[in-house]
């Protein structure tokens, strides 16, 4: 099969799942079977594509002209491929997990849930393979809209409020900043195609570059750069599988992926390094890293704590991009993959705890680790990876970011990174420590309370992703080699 056909299949497979599911609502087993098959097929297509892209096959497919002679077009390249791989690799696991979670909690409207999920994954694939800014924008918006019904899934007042913030910020920033930035780029350069080395150099005055960059960075609200981060905690009203795959992986990674894509292929690392247009961004991202970590410390609700942790970790990627050094960009890109694995593990565990015990606050978790050892063990591994301690995959992204900061000669950034790691320890390890070492709440009810390990469907996926964190530590070389073309030239 040609590369072009494979990319289209990557979009068509989840789209077909979305079209098929509404007719299967009355037969949940068939419905979930279709979702799983679709997820595995998608993974297969992506796995076939990876070696081709590694071999340098970046063939483009153009679908149709949409505006101003600009096409909806797809072209694979390492960064997008990595994003596609992360999303496609985690969708089957998340589908398994969803089955356990949605049934375990007897959620309503399960068909709508799976349909929107599949549409969101299709949008993610569209973003991952986008060959130009227009395509990226189209699927970016499609992702926002398809996840809105997921955020408001519960349908109560709190869900409505959360959905309002979610949609308001994401649509507001994308229409208010991103769209004019794209049109500006188009008006100035006459192209929107992603090109190695960037397209704006020589077309936009150097003095205006920081402004254009700001419109992109704040316009991509999914990257949750402060002060446009509020949607992420608000989105936590969604069912946990949604938080796990979409708001820890697909949607937020879509944001930082778009940031990287814009920095590498629209501005060009060299242009940013020579003009210094991204210096301000270092500070904004650095501040987001620290402030969000501090806020996470104050949150007792486990999902809220993880959400702020995500805000903080996302800005590592933005920081890597803003440093405009090879190692910074590489570290930031790796962070997309390592944080995805780590954070989805943590969310899976949070959901497993909720399914088994209906507890949502960190302070209620005392002693639960001894009843749910697998869940809490997986949480511990995920937490270590997020913090960046060996032997977990997260080590490498933090390491490369530090090297990148050193290359840029920025002691302050190194300081921020180290301080943030300490904060990560401070807000993540207590969860595990309470579970394993503190006496259970309510004297003598610890085991008799009827709390047991969560259903298999809820425990297996986090254990697999936790193992992935570990694996990534030892298997980082091929990944770095795969991403090497990003920083060539």
């Amino acid at each position, binding site marked *: 099969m040609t590369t072009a056909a494979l990319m289209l299949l990557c979009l068509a497979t989840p789209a077909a799942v979305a079209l098929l599911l509404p007719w299967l609502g009355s037969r949940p087993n068939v419905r979930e079977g279709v979702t799983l098959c679709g997820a595995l097929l998608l993974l297969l297509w992506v796995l076939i594509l990876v070696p081709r892209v590694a071999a340098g096959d970046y063939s483009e497919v153009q679908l*149709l*002209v*949409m*505006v*101003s002679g600009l096409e*909806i077009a797809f072209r694979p390249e390492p960064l997008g491929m990595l994003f596609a791989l992360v999303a496609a690799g985690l969708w089957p696991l998340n589908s398994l997990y969803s089955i356990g979670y949605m049934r375990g909690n007897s959620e309503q409207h399960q068909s709508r849930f799976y349909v929107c999920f599949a549409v969101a994954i299709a949008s993610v694939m569209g973003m991952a393979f986008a060959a130009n800014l227009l395509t990226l*924008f*189209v699927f970016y*918006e*499609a992702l926002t*809209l398809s996840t809105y019904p997921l955020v*408001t899934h519960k*349908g*109560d*007042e709190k*869900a*409505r409020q959360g*959905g*309002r913030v979610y*949609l*308001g910020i994401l*649509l*507001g920033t994308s*229409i*208010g900043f991103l*769209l*004019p930035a794209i*049109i*500006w780029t*188009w*008006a100035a350069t006459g192209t929107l195609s992603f090109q190695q080395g960037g397209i704006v150099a020589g077309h936009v005055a150097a003095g205006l570059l920081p402004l254009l960059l700001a419109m992109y960075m704040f316009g991509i609200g999914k990257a949750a750069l402060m002060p446009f981060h509020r949607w992420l905690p608000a989105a936590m009203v969604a069912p946990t599988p949604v938080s796990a795959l979409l708001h820890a992986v697909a949607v937020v990674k879509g944001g930082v992926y778009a940031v990287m894509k814009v920095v590498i292929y629209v501005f060009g690392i060299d242009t940013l390094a020579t003009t210094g247009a991204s210096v301000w961004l270092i500070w904004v991202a650095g501040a987001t890293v620290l402030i969000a970590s501090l806020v996470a410390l104050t949150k007792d609700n486990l999902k809220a704590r993880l959400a702020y942790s995500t805000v903080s970790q996302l800005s590592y990627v933005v920081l890597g991009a803003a440093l405009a050094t090879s190692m910074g960009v590489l570290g930031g890109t790796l962070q997309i993959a390592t944080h995805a694995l780590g954070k989805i593990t943590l969310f899976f565990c949070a959901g497993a705890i909720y399914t088994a015990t209906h507890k949502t606050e960190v302070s209620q978790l005392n002693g639960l680790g001894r009843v749910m050892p697998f869940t809490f063990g997986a949480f511990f591994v995920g937490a270590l990876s997020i913090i960046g301690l060996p032997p977990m995959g997260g080590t490498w992204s933090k390491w490369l970011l530090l090297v990148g900061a050193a290359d840029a000669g920025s002691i302050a950034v190194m300081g921020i990174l180290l301080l943030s790691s300490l904060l990560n320890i401070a807000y993540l390890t207590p969860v595990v420590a309470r579970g394993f070492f503190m006496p259970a709440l309510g004297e003598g009810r610890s085991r008799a309370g009827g709390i047991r390990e969560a259903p298999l469907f809820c425990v297996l996926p986090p254990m697999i992703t936790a193992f992935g964190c570990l694996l990534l530590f030892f298997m980082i070389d091929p990944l770095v080699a795969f991403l090497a073309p990003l920083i060539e030239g």
Partner: protein
Amino acid sequence: MISLQLPILQVVIPLLGAPVCALFRSSRSAWALSVALAWLSFGVAVALFQQSWFGGYVSYEIGGWPPPWGIEYRIDILNSFVLLLVSGMAAVVVPFAGRSIEAELQDDRIPLFYAALLLCYTGLLGITVTGDAFNVFVFLEISSLSTYAMIALGRDRRALTASYQYLIMGTIGATFILIGIGLMYVMTGTLNMADLAERLQQVNNTRTIRVAFGFLTVGICLKLALFPLHLWLPNAYTFAPSAVTAFLASTATKVAVYMLLRFFFTVFGAEFSFATMNLDLILMPLALVAIFSMSLVALYQDNVKRMLAYSSVAQIGYMILGISFGSINGLTAGILHLFNHGLMKGALFLALGALVLRTGSTQIQDLAGVGRRMPWTMGAFVIGGLSLIGVPLTVGFISKWYLVAAAIEAGYWPIAGLILLTSLMAVVYIWRVVEVAYFGVPLAEAPLASEAPLSMLLPIWVLVIANLYLGINTSLTVGAATMAAGQLMAGW
């Protein structure tokens, strides 16, 4: 050859249908005839569009009298593009009207209603096809008078005052247009537009012609509801029967915008209108105020129909804004939005009509919970709303893109910002409805709404699919708008 008679057929088909409808006793047969004629006339419009797609124009001499003495119908890509919209909307709205009008009107008035609808339709088509300035006025009166009658048929008694208000303001507008045309006739002795365009060159430095220009500007802007001459519109749209609102919102103001383009670009010429008379200095500020203030007002409406009506005034502002740039790209954006807005507002008002049929109200709080009871109707409303907001993969996005690009190209950065800001305001007012419909809890005494009948859902979804399809494959709309803008700038 029948293909040579297409321009006159376009007007004659609905014109002859109107009195026949009035003779019918049965509302069903009047409706069936209207549907047949609307579809037939859509076919004619498609054929005309095909003829003009390759450039040039079709000229038709009424009664064989050659222009400039006789009345000439002259159709280029701009006319035929507008004809396509108007007849397309009629082909969709008239089938929809069957059930909707039955529920909203007394039985014995229904055949008369279809007569009025066909007359209004004739008038709008006539304004669009004709190449004769006085003929424009005649058709304008045909469409206006029948519009007043249709608005007055609304269920609410306030429809009468709304209609009366529109009657007064519409008549002032039509009179101003007539005065403008009369003054031009005095100076040139001709009414044929192409001929006028030539002869005005020699006399356009006279005060008479400038006064004519002023009268025409005000008259046409009244008909197209440019702020602050829009006062008739919100009431008229709110109280008219649902199908009438949908039809008027997607056609009547669009045809008025067409008149503006035809007079200012073809008859007076872009050079005179913009360089000498500084039309842009009048249109641009008014368009900006319309866009902003009307979006703001729409935010505070509790009646969904009235909210969409104010949104229409704001959207007309976008069209006029594009035109006021006086550039090819601005003009393209204006014409494109003229077409696209017809599609999105048509879809929204039709979906609202279906909601009215089932819930009996247009108040926002009465729509609580309809999202679950009428999933197809509300789904259509959401997609229409997304199109209005300008989300990618809908026609609204295409309009916004060209409009913002034209503003940036002309260096109007703050205007580009305002366009996007008002899109965000559209998010707010559309989402108020969406939230109530999906998350609201219906009142205990509210009637249990069920999904709308198929005869309404089909027309609604035809428009919804047009919104999506033409938002993805834009070769037809953008191609026609670009060509029309080029022809307008070049003149006949």
